[in-house]
């Protein structure tokens, strides 16, 4: 970053200070304008924020919503890992009759909008499955396909020498995969998998459309009673940002530790809007 500008001399330092103050004032002005406008419309009155000081609201609505969100995300990621492993092994198979359908399935689920799939599963199977499982299924097929590609990248990241050494020792393909490739590949993919968890957490919010009682839907219940949409939205956003930011920090930490051990890591798939920066 510091490549772009030289170690500043006195004139530059003064210019930077002026520029910094001006820039700071502009940013402060923009934020101040937003807050002022919100205040004008009475968004900061006690009545609007009162629900969040009421512990009943937290106990009965928000915290259960958080639990449902995390529940759906955990289920979805766990199933997605399994689904992704299956898809990946199909994708890497030497038999085209398995490989080609694998490619088609992966690309199909990666191109389809997640909401479309969730709606489809709900309209088709909602009667028997309720609202949790269409959401989990939709998340599973999408994240599974993304993870399949990540797994593939992870396996390709293992140095070829390892695989060749395995074969030269007389190991069969499945043994090479299981005993040599997978352990190393898993370590390489760990940060990317954690980033994908963040994506899954964010996407559980789409359950709102099929009435799954996750966090955002619960928030709706609150502002429908108290008409405080902006405070509710801000509180919800704060909750999500805290959760996701912490998870990304975990991913960065893991990646850092792995890198110090000399392990090459896989970059997560940006096509999945994963957090590339978290893995830097």
């Amino acid at each position, binding site marked *: 970053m510091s490549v772009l500008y030289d170690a500043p001399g006195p004139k530059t330092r003064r210019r930077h200070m002026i520029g910094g103050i001006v*820039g700071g004032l502009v940013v402060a002005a923009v934020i101040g304008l937003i807050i002022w406008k919100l205040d004008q419309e009475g968004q900061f009155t006690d009545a609007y924020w009162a629900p969040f000081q009421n512990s009943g609201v937290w106990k009965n609505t928000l915290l259960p919503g958080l639990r449902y969100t995390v529940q759906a995300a955990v289920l979805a990621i766990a199933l997605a890992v399994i689904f992704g492993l299956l898809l990946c092994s199909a994708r890497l198979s030497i038999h085209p009759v398995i490989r080609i359908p694998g490619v088609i399935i992966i690309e199909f689920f990666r*191109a389809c909008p997640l909401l479309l799939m969730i709606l489809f599963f709900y309209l088709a199977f909602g009667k028997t499955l309720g609202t949790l499982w269409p959401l989990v299924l939709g998340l599973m097929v999408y994240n599974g396909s993304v993870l399949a590609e990540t797994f593939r990248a992870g396996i390709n990241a293992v140095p070829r020498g390892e695989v060749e050494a395995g074969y030269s020792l007389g190991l069969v393909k499945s043994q090479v995969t299981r005993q040599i490739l997978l352990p190393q590949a898993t370590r390489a993919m760990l940060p990317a998998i954690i980033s994908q968890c963040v994506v899954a957490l964010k996407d559980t*919010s789409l359950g709102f459309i099929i009435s799954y009682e996750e966090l955002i839907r619960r928030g709706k219940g609150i502002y429908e009673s108290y008409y405080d949409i902006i405070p509710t939205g801000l509180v919800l956003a704060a909750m999500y940002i805290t959760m996701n930011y912490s998870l990304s920090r975990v991913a960065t930490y893991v990646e850092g530790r792995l890198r110090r051990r000399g392990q090459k890591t896989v970059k997560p798939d940006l096509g*999945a809007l994963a957090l590339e920066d978290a893995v*830097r």
Partner: protein
Amino acid sequence: MNVLRHNFGTILDGFRETIALTALSAVIAIVLGVVLAAMRVSPAPPLRWAGTSYVNIFRNTPLLLLFVLFVFGLPTVGVHASFFTRAIIALSLYTAAFVCEAVRSGINTVQAGQAEAARAIGMTFTQTLRYVVLPQAMRAAVPPIGSLLIALTRNSSVAEAFGTKEATYVLDSLGRDNASALYWIFGGIALGYIIICLAIAGGFRLLERHLAVGR
């Protein structure tokens, strides 16, 4: 199959909305993203701080929450815009954060020597960015931006729950009325999205090849 044929016009209208949403949001997101990236690498700390905060906030918030905030919140503060406009605001603000990161990683791929040479001939920060670094950074950022636009197309389907009648809304309403033809409707609309995504992917690959420079 007949359902698809009878409602072909509705389905096309839906996709027209989808493409409009995607295209407009993409333009705004890319412009805003480049500005944010410039802010994040600038020497002025307040700008850096603002850029980083923006990215952290908008990357970690679900898109749906942003939609809820803008579609339901804007009228509360007196901003009256069409549902389409509100959807575009939500989509572009969200995607801009990711574009910023893609451009920033593009900036990081530019060799240090380029920036040093620019400084050596006396260019200021803005000039370095404008004439030397950004053009090369954007070239490196083209593939990730392509993926982001594909993701944007998929994210535009969230607008269906907020008064915008785009392609996923067509599935929602047709699917409820014609439950027996659900698989056909889903197949048709999924196919539409896949075509759009393939078109974007193909277009970007052409762009990449066009911009490729022998080194």
